[in-house]
């Protein structure tokens, strides 16, 4: 679906006409990321991160395929094959560092993308499916990244795998057999390494599939925008090409500069030194920590230090860690405010900036810190706020909050006036493409 004023694909070259009849792939591209896709004109730079995420996924798949050409998923040689890649393969060090830092870049981009969604209410109708698919992508990314980190078979690879697969052991009754089934043994070993490699190669392509669905679902209502007011008339939009291709294009350049700076000048600063020690099941590292992008959820896991009624602390932690992400699935129905954008929601905005963001920051910090006081108590407070924010504060705030008046249209928010649309509205001729939920003022 698209807006009635969307440009139509009109091939002029005979070959393109022929192609359009047989396989209208150019038409699909034109309507998805070309002149045929009208996009709100007022998107800010937070709307560049979807495109950047796609770039990151591409970097990971390309560098990953090259890494796989030199890697052997065998506990006896896995570590050595990575060292061989870095030392002896032409440009191997570049592929290795780009792949390892590419995972971090992907998560930086995706966290900004997700928090853009939180702030601007991107998850709300009619874009619930876009959001749900996005959460699925995030879960797949976490699984892929976790298994990828195990592959070099360093100390943190091994012990991280042991801790995380150990979480399944907390499930009552079936936990232990399930854990052994997942690992193919009692502890991570060759069987686990092999299947992790197999899945680490598979899942990125599953992600590609879900990304296609994510973009498809997005193109039905079209992109949201910082005002949260839906597109009304042609003057609210610009065609994706050339406008947003140009904007995304230079954003990719800016991203690439930061990424290159990390890869070429600080390639190891986000990794843990212990992973340069080959895995040794007989020697436990002083502090077992996952990669930085898992820290908030790791902090939540470790925040549950007390049995709660009949539920063991470990099971509580596991429930909470998965629950912390699963709660995102319910967001479209927990947040009932008819106003999308946080910019017009004074109360929600305060809870976002002074509640959720600091809580996430504390969880990030504590997840990377050793499991000692005061970090445990700090993460307990932050995790408490995290759950309260989504499950208690959001439903209540969205029910009682008095939103600020919304602009009539995107055009009005940009130009200060929108005569065209108002003239037509006065004549009763407006056919709003999507009815906006008007806040009760």
């Amino acid at each position, binding site marked *: 679906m698209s807006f009635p004023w969307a440009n139509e694909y009109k091939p002029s070259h005979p070959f393109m006409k022929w192609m359009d009849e047989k396989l209208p792939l150019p038409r699909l591209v034109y309507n998805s990321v070309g002149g045929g896709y009208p996009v709100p004109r007022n998107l800010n730079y937070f709307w560049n991160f979807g495109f950047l995420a796609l770039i990151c996924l591409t970097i990971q798949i390309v560098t990953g395929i090259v890494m796989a050409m030199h890697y052997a998923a065998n506990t006896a040689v896995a570590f050595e094959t990575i060292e061989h890649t870095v030392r002896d393969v032409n440009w191997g060090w570049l592929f290795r560092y780009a792949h390892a830092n590419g995972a971090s870049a992907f998560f930086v981009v995706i966290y900004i993308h997700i928090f853009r969604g939180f702030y601007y209410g991107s998850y709300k109708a009619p874009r619930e499916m876009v959001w749900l698919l996005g959460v699925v992508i995030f879960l797949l990314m976490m699984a892929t990244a976790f298994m990828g980190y195990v592959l070099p078979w360093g100390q943190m690879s091994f012990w991280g795998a042991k801790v995380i697969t150990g979480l399944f052991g907390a499930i009552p009754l079936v936990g232990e057999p399930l854990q052994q089934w997942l690992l193919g043994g009692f502890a991570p070993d060759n069987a686990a390494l092999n299947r992790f490699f197999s899945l680490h190669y598979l899942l990125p392509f599953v992600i590609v599939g879900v990304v296609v669905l994510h973009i498809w679902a997005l193109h039905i209502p079209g992109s949201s925008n910082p005002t949260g007011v839906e597109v009304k008339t042609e003057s609210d939009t610009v065609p994706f090409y050339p406008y947003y291709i140009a904007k995304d294009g*230079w954003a990719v350049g800016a991203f690439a500069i930061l990424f290159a700076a990390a890869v070429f000048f600080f390639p190891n600063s986000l990794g843990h030194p212990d992973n340069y020690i080959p895995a040794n099941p007989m020697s436990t590292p002083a502090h077992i920590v996952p990669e930085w992008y898992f820290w908030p959820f790791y902090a939540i896991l470790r925040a549950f230090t007390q049995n709660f009624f009949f539920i063991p602390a470990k099971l509580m932690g596991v429930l909470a860690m998965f629950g912390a992400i699963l709660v995102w699935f319910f967001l479209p129905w927990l947040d009932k405010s008819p106003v999308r954008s946080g910019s017009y929601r004074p109360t929600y905005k305060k809870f976002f900036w002074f509640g959720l963001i600091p809580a996430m920051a504390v969880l990030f910090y504590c997840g990377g810190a050793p499991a000692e006081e005061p970090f445990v108590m700090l993460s307990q407070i932050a995790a408490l706020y995290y759950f309260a924010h989504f499950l208690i504060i959001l439903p209540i705030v969205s029910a009682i909050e008095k939103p600020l008046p919304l602009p009539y249209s995107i055009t009005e928010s940009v130009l200060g006036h929108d005569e065209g649309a108002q003239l037509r509205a006065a004549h009763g001729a407006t056919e709003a493409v999507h009815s906006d939920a008007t806040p009760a003022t």
Partner: protein
Amino acid sequence: MARILSILVGLFFTVALAWAFVNGAYIQITEPTGPTAEHEFHLHPKDVHFASDGPFGKFDNQQLQRGFQVYKEVCAACHSLEYVAFRDLAQLGYTDAEVKAIAAGFSVPGVDPNTGESTMVPGTPTDYFPKPFANDVAARAANNNAVPPDLSLIAKARHNGPAYVYSLLTGYRDQPAELVKEFPGSKTPPGLHYNPYFANLNLAMPPPLTTDGQVEYSDGTKATVDQMAKDVSAFLVWTAEPKLEKRKQTGWAVLGFLLFATILGYMSYRSIWADKKH
């Protein structure tokens, strides 16, 4: 209904966390955990700089050769260098003939060409540095139950690796009297050596660099303990990442290109949007 359900689930997690917090706070108040000897006396690595530091860093081949000499004459007695081959030494500025001679100076595991039996043969440039011990059991037996770690990656396998290695090598001292006074149970056990740069303060490795002139540098540099420690640390930066120099040089070329491309991209963005207020 959905709202009530969500608030109930929210209360479940928040009350569980509040309960854990109260318990944690109670334990903190009733049985506060005192400081440990490691907490009080462990030192962060010294502030030391190497030619390879920073975005423009380059290896100082002269220093790497000295560092290699220290490794060969001191460290190699106990520590392996598994991922480094003799051929790699050409990068330090040794000629092919010198590399061959260095390799031939080591015995590596091989096969007797006449009998097919395992034996030791002189190394060739394609061989890797041989391990000083046959296996971990042998290493433990010879080293007071500690396995000397492989050194190829040590500069990347420790926080602030190069400075850590240098600090450790120059950080041996007598255990401070205050430590034993404050933590009577923390006296350095026999066979271990006090070193505040080591995580748990007591290290199985005896001080390896003890006297000035322990190795004899051919380039005339005075082989003080400090100098030898610095040189071998610089050498271990190289063994951990022989491609470091190439990485940084490539980085500048890539950044230059990206900067140019991004400026062009930004300018076309400005020109395309020039007529559109947004």
